[in-house]
């Protein structure tokens, strides 16, 4: 392409969008209705379906049946530990002790859970692993071989998201959620079946158990959700734990939560030094 003085960029793509919002999600037409992915919110949704059904509808464009939304709600409950030592929760406490608004605290805590170590931030890599692992299984690889693929060398520990929980080994929530899934009539799908096979291999190698993530992500894959959809679905996963920690700290005087003296920080930097004379700008 030659770029002469008279050249004009092709901006048709943006011109078609300028001054207008075209949407498939819906919207409010005052005096008529509120549309939500094709449903009439007041007629079809309010008082008729659960909040988690609407949350899942808005995150994915598909209205799930009630039992899946109930299972999802139970999973969210299982991520609502009111423990101020957990990283995102402590951010809620720190915001509380600064007397911020509850929205500042919860949005900051939720943002913190966009982490490579825990919370929704692990979803993309986690789901991609299980999707690829199932493809490998379909191609004839065993769970053992799938795990070996994740090892840098034969003696290295396999590093797989969902099979190394920070702080503890094992996860008290899996049995409860699995029982609930059975009670709600869910059958174990192929992603989740493989996740348990992988757990057995890893347990035999390292004594590590799966954590909730390695249970939930394959379960949701089996329900037909993609990695991007699951990331969106779980975006407020830690909300309730953060708001608990915020509230307790916010009800106390400022800086009453977990205060530090100057020497509670271990300074490892340079000792006191003089500022060098500033040279003129060259």
């Amino acid at each position: 392409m030659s770029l002469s003085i008279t050249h004009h960029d092709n901006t048709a793509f943006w011109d078609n969008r300028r001054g207008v919002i075209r949407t498939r999600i819906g919207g409010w037409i005052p005096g008529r209705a509120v549309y939500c992915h094709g449903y009439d919110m007041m007629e079809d949704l309010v008082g008729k379906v659960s909040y988690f059904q609407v949350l899942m509808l808005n995150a994915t464009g598909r209205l799930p049946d009630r039992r899946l939304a109930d299972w999802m709600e139970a999973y969210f409950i299982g991520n609502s530990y009111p423990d101020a030592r957990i990283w995102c929760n402590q951010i809620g406490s720190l915001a509380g002790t600064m007397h911020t608004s509850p929205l500042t605290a919860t949005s900051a805590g939720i943002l913190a859970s966009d982490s490579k170590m825990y919370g929704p931030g692990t979803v993309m890599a986690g789901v991609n692993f299980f999707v690829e692992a199932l493809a490998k299984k379909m191609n004839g690889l065993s769970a053992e071989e799938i795990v070996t693929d994740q090892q840098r060398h034969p003696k290295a520990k396999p590093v797989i998201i969902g099979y190394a929980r920070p702080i503890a080994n094992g996860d008290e929530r899996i049995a409860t959620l699995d029982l609930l899934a059975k009670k709600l009539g869910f059958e174990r799908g192929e992603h989740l079946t493989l996740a348990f096979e992988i757990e057995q291999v890893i347990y035999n190698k390292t004594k590590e158990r799966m954590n909730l993530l390695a249970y939930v992500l394959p379960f949701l894959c089996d329900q037909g959700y993609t990695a991007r959809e699951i990331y969106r679905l779980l975006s407020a996963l830690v909300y309730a734990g953060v708001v608990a920690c915020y509230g307790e700290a916010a009800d106390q005087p400022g800086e009453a939560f977990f205060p530090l003296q100057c020497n509670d920080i271990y300074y490892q930097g340079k000792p006191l030094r003089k500022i060098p004379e500033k040279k003129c700008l060259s």
Partner: protein
Amino acid sequence: MPQAKTDVTKRNIDFATRTATKIWKEEPSAHNPYLAEECLCHGYSLIELMEGRSFVDTLFLLFQGELPSPDHARLLEMTLVAFCNPGPRHPATRAAMNAGVGKTSPAHLLPIGLNVLSGSHLGGQEVEEAIRFLRKHAGDLPNEIALALLAPNRPENGDFHLAPGFGSRFGGIDPMPKKVADILTAHHSSGAALQWGKAFAETIRPDNMGWLSTGVVAAVLCDLGFHPQAGAGMFQLICAPGILAHGLELANKPISAMPFLDEEHYVIEHNTPR
């Protein structure tokens, strides 16, 4: 409901008893150990810095552990000026403006705008990726890298960033980052990353692509010795003043001061459940 027991054992992790830092020392006051009598930034007294050094010098010191050379300070200062405002059309600024006109607490305007500025398209994540890109290819020939990256199909719609920090904006070459980069690369304080980026931008010019703001900031940070992980936050810091100024400008105005599209311009394309 009876529950099956799961084996959960707490790990025996050797957590630090105190948080450590090399950046900041607070000398406790003799009469109250919670209050600092003196603060040191990498060994320099904060009071002495305040009296004898610029904000740019102190900013560099905070992240690099040493005061900058006059050349490095100048390069950082020019960058801070050049990118102090993404402008009122940038989605990050618009987020702060929406919050302002929506009467959100003024304390939230900046964090809201900076959150939006964290993205992988023209945001902080792209700066981080661009620093990694520039570091990875420092020893390669820009035209060979461009050739390899141009090989995959360019998407039919929307902009294409063939590498983080480089590509098209609204279908063309964004003139402002190019002008800024031209000035920075001509300045004697510019380093290898800016020069490499200039050659790379020149190579992709016939394809109607060039420097993006994220690429220029990444190249400067790279030349100043910043780690890629600092890229996103530094970009947010650099762009923060304009985002806040635009948010505040609308905070005292009525909600009618910004467009709220009428139904004719808000088109719901699907009305049946999917």
